[in-house]
């Protein structure tokens, strides 16, 4: 494809889209799919055909619209009417009312904070484009950024724009992306690789899955731009095997882009080549760690190794390798199109841009949201999230998954950015946000995460392999009401050792859920232990409790 062809295609597609008076968009991401979105789409299509309205009202499959708890979702564009919990039987009412007032029964108002408070960059196309059509993405300025860097910018200028944008790694740790790109671009010449980390392993996080299912070309474009910037001609996407729909759409997208000449050799007639391959993970959380991920792509057990050397210098197959998370790469096309300075104007001083969160747990509106950095947790949970259902009381919000912590009520007015979250004992993480109400016991929550870390420990280093086991045993004992004050002391000691002596991030952060619940909810531990003591004292002499 030549630059002219890309622009022509975009214009052509836009005209085609304008031809229609209305358009019915059906969310076909995994959430809505499992509530029967495909039947809804089928019903809508057949109703439209029955009324002979195919030329006026096309039915399209689109990606995630965000409000997963109310799925299946259907939107009528360009009017912007949203329908929730749609069933196949509703199809005829929806179609017949396109020119009329919306069907009240299933109408979902979109003037609520859930929709108005969001700012979409990464998710700008989600719910708008058909993820299985390249033309849709092109019509939404797709591959413009790649064209721009290949024809107007030097690799160093691309790195510079990313640096100016202030974008930080969205996988969790928040390492400055521009700095990482700069290191890889300077790491000598010869073969280099770009890896997209789509091994979204946090239990309670589905941001990356939604992006890949809803707008796969955006990630491919981000990778190609990264490849040009650092001097790599090969990319790998390491994706969880548990995401079959995302895998299917990525495979299709790679095929489409390659056929259109947007990936492959001599892209846009330049000398730049870039090919992308998929690699499936096989169920190992530790493979989110860079060196373990590399081991896994190389076909080995996913064991981390001591760093340095860092992957930027010594990565996949021993070559300099850039590893970025899905959301990080999905930000790139927009940053290139609008400039780094534009991106830097959003967010807080040290955390720029937006962040996608997967809001779940005991909250009214569960789903996918994107907000500018710096909004408060209270806004997210009570305004966007609609608060706690069933009149229950808020207790804590968990961010950062098994590496993060639980944040209590008193910190809800804190702005969401990397530093603030760290200060209160949690981390940004990849974006899972689980709300808990008064029915959750925090010792139980800590035990849940420790069990996760124990089963996900690769077993290479002693503190993580045996330490997580021992901490889980202690938490289990305390939670069962059989703990002693000595157990709690030992638990604290093990937290200290495992945090400071483990080899990789998984082990080093595994005590975080315990430490944060101890920090804010130690009384819950104490109460369980005191109750255990009383029960023990009440046991008649000679009887042994087990």
């Amino acid at each position, binding site marked *: 494809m030549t630059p002219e062809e890309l622009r022509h295609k975009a214009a052509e597609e836009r005209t085609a889209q304008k031809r229609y008076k209305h358009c019915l968009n059906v969310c076909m991401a995994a*959430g809505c799919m499992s509530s029967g979105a495909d039947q809804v789409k089928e019903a809508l299509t057949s109703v439209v055909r029955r009324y002979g309205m195919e030329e006026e009202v096309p039915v399209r499959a689109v990606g995630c619209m965000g409000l*997963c708890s109310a799925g299946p979702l259907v939107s009528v564009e360009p009017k912007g009417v949203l329908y929730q919990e749609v069933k196949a039987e509703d199809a005829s009412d929806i179609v017949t009312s396109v020119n009329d007032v919306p069907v009240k029964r299933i109408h979902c108002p979109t003037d609520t904070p859930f929709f108005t408070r969001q700012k979409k960059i990464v998710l700008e196309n989600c719910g708008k484009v058909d993820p299985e059509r390249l033309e849709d993405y092109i019509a939404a300025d797709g591959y413009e950024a790649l064209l721009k860097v290949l024809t107007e910018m030097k690799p160093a200028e691309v790195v510079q724009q990313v640096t100016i944008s202030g974008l930080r790694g969205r996988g969790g740790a928040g390492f400055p992306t521009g700095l990482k790109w700069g290191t890889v671009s300077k790491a000598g010449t010869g073969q280099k690789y770009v890896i997209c980390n789509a091994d979204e392993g946090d239990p*309670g*996080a*589905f941001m990356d899955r939604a992006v890949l299912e809803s707008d796969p070309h955006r990630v491919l474009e981000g990778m190609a731009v990264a490849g040009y910037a650092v001097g790599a001609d090969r990319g790998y996407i390491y994706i969880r095997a548990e995401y079959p729909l995302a895998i299917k759409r990525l495979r299709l997208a790679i095929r489409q882009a390659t056929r259109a000449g947007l990936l492959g050799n001599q892209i846009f007639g330049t000398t730049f080549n870039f090919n992308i391959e998929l690699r499936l993970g096989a169920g190992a959380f530790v493979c989110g760690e860079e060196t373990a991920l590399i081991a896994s792509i190389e*076909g*080995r057990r996913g064991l981390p190794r001591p760093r340095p050397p860092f992957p930027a210098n010594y990565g996949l197959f021993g070559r300099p390798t850039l590893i970025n998370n899905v959301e990080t790469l999905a930000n790139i096309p927009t940053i290139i199109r609008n400039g780094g300075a534009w991106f830097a104007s959003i967010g807080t001083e040290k955390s720029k841009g937006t962040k996608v969160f997967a809001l779940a*747990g005991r909250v009214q509106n*569960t789903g996918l949201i994107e907000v500018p950095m710096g909004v408060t947790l209270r806004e997210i949970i009570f305004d966007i999230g609609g608060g706690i259902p069933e009149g229950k009381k808020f207790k804590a919000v968990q961010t950062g998954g098994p590496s993060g912590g639980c944040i209590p009520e008193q910190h809800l007015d804190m702005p969401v950015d990397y530093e603030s979250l760290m200060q209160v004992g949690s981390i940004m993480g990849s974006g899972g946000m689980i709300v808990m109400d008064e029915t959750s016991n925090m010792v139980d929550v800590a035990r849940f995460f420790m069990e996760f870390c124990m089963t996900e420990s690769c077993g290479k280093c002693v503190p993580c392999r045996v330490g997580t086991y021992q901490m889980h045993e202690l938490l289990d004992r305390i939670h069962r009401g059989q703990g002693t004050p000595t157990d709690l002391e030992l638990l604290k000691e093990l937290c200290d050792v495992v945090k400071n002596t483990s080899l990789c991030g998984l082990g080093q952060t595994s005590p975080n859920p315990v430490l944060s619940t101890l920090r804010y909810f130690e009384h819950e531990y104490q109460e369980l232990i005191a109750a255990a003591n009383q029960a023990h004292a009440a046991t008649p002499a000679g009887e042994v409790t087990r």
Partner: protein
Amino acid sequence: MIQAVDKPQPPSDDKRWKIVDATMRRNGHDRHALIETLHTVQESFGFLDEEGLRYVANSLRVPLSSVYGVATFYHFFTLRPPGAHTCVVCTGTACYIKGAMKIVETVSQKYKVRPGQTTPDGKVSLLTARCLGSCGLAPAVVFDGDVVGKLAGPQVAERIERWVKS
């Protein structure tokens, strides 16, 4: 030239080995393709048996111990044949908070299977997953590949009962 080892032959003339061969060929029989190849074996046969592991090891020239190490490191791979139907309960954080463990308990008790096991009649395997990414629908369960959300123990047991009776 003397060849140290004859070209490995597939364990049987089962057509599915052709699919496995295709995966290895596509990757140039590179040992880095081990995980890709194991994925294909499991997709084709439902699980990884010893003969299959041996064949893949010999074809890719990866030591047997490494193949076994990889096959048992990743939770996605299974060395035992699965039941006729599988019920995967998501135990990710969101599902946990919303009662996924109650579902596991209900099914475990009713059908006398622990997570990871198959009923003695070979009909149903009960598995747990570390987050399906369907947190918006918590608690979620996958019945033979179909994700169903917002479930409770009795509903899950009801669906399993249909499998058992069939």
